[in-house]
């Protein structure tokens, strides 16, 4: 498999949220993988990536936790560790980059891993988000073939969030100021991508518990702009952005006295709808903002 090719098998890292409040993301991803002919080897014996918080509180522990995830991914024999969350992607890529580039560091961390019964890590894994796998090349062709039901020109606002674009020296997939991957996917699914400036900005999630007011001041921008641009729904590759955009939208409504009700879809759900995956797998009932207006529009 070349750098941007489509792997037949990946080590699959669910991350915390897809096993907790965003279970619908995990079930959608698994159903979608079947349609794409992508074999998922789920990593079971792994932990949280630290979500940037362990990186900030205990950086050396952060590095070791992520090295452990990478080591178990390498042990599956897959070359790609697939993520479905922006924050997991940044944390794992950052640790991977440090470990690949610094032999002495990797030797120390590997020694520590082995001391507690984890395989050493040799640096043989590439961390890639599902978004990147289906945005171009063979994966994109398979996506087009799978999305046979289409989206009937549904107007979808792409929301990238931060940690899939920046820092670009760790991400490197697309221009962080002019990204195109979500737009390409929306179009391939038969939808119409809506453009608005805040699509590359922050949803406020990292500080939503500690600085709610500042966070809501960030959250309102994409929601307001997408609605103004005529979006029927918004799609995001990150479950943390999803939680902020979907669950905290009611707080935004309470704070501003306005009504938004913008349905927010996970990336795998958007493709899933176009691919005709059953509602029982996409599990829209778990969303706080109802997705029914979107489903009604597609049914007519």
């Amino acid at each position, binding site marked *: 498999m070349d750098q941007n090719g489509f792997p037949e098998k990946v080590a699959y890292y669910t991350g*915390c*949220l897809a*096993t*907790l*409040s965003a279970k619908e993301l995990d079930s959608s991803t698994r159903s979608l993988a079947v349609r794409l002919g992508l074999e998922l080897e789920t990593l*079971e*014996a*792994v*932990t*949280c990536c*630290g*979500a*940037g*918080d362990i*990186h*900030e*509180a*205990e*950086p*050396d*522990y*952060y*590095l*070791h936790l992520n090295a*452990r995830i990478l080591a178990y991914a390498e042990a599956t024999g897959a070359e790609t560790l697939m993520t479905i969350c922006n924050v997991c992607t940044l944390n794992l890529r950052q640790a991977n*980059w*440090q470990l690949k*580039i*610094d032999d002495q*560091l990797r030797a120390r961390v590997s020694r*520590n891993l082995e*001391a*507690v*019964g*984890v395989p050493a890590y040799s640096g043989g894994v590439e961390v890639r988000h599902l978004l990147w796998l289906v945005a171009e090349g063979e994966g994109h062709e398979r996506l087009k073939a799978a999305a046979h039901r289409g989206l009937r020109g549904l107007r979808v606002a792409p929301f990238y969030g*931060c*940690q899939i674009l*920046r*820092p670009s020296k760790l991400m490197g997939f697309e221009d962080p*100021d002019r990204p195109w991957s979500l737009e390409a996917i929306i179009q391939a699914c038969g939808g119409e991508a809506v453009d608005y*400036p805040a699509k590359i*900005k*922050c949803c*406020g999630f*990292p*500080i939503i*518990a*500690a*600085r709610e*007011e*500042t*966070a809501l*001041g*960030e959250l309102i921008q994409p929601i307001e702009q997408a609605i103004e641009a005529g979006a029927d729904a918004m799609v995001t590759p990150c479950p943390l952005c999803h939680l902020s955009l979907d*669950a905290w939208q*009611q*707080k935004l409504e309470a704070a501003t006295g306005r009504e938004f009700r913008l349905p927010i879809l996970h990336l795998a759900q958007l493709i899933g709808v176009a691919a005709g995956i059953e509602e029982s797998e996409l599990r829209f*009932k*778990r969303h*706080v903002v109802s997705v029914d207006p979107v489903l009604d529009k597609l049914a007519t």
Partner: protein
Amino acid sequence: MQVALKIWRYDGETGERRLQDYELDAPEWATLLDVLDLIKDQVDGSLAYRKSCRMMICGSCGMRMDGAAVLACKMRMAEVVDAGRVPVISPMGNLPVVKDLVVDMEPFWAKMRAMQPWLRPGYNEADEEREFLVSQEQMNVIHKEALCINCGCCVSECNSMESDPDFLGPAALAKGMRFVGDARDAATVERLEAYNSEHGIWDCTRCYFCQERCPKGVDPRDAIAKLGAESIRHGVDRDMGAKHAKWFVQSAKTTGWLREEELIPKTQGWVSTVKQVQFAMSLMRKGKARPLPIPHVAEGVEEARALYDLVKEQGRDGALGIVQGEHALARIEFTEEGGARRAAPEIEPGVEPPPAEG
């Protein structure tokens, strides 16, 4: 080459704002600043912008090109022209505009001053009649932070500052780390207390715009993470942001996965959580939270616990844990710019460099 661009003009006295088109011939090597100089000389003498060194040192010429802050003297126009773009030039964000591309830097300097950006040593060389040597490894901790040229490009797109204008922001906090990490400074805890204020380090939303924009490789977001790690190391952890971060460590150690349902109470305390009962109920109805959280324990979590103990024993606590990656960064940068420096002794991790020759 033929360069076309649009510039936002602003008259501070009348408040009038308009987008003006320019097109002119410029040499292949021209930077954005060279193009502005040509416009001012040959087309329109009334255009206002700041410059001084023209070589990425003074930090005067920060401005936005298509919404992204750049140093005008660093930005080569050839790549923009080749891409067929007609860029829009505007003043930096998060600072008041005075005229055209000139912003008022006073709020920037006020935050800088609030960091007490001077050394407060705990010794007096003259009294003790000896030298205090600082090792290369100790200086590496603040190597990147010391590269800042106060240009404000990082502040321009700071998402937290846009929402909370009082946020100290990336440049000031990177300066703070430059002193917290300085082995000669004795005011560490006092500084950390100050930087942990309402508008301090835990107000950062980790959007990484600062890291993306900084033209000097300061990586301000990493500097803020270092301040967080130093705060927790020194027990300065009353802020909700610190409690939030510590809960992730606690979760990883005990169950492996984030104990998400307990995150809000652990961050904000039970009293304010109870006040949010309506919000919590709405999440429970959707299965996003449960009334009695039952932590989901990861397979092999005892390995994660053992790793924690091992790492703590090795004592690379605080900012030191982040510095590791920077040795790698130093190597990449030196390698790209001159392969000969790859094996330079001063960038070998953890090794004291030999004394300079001559």
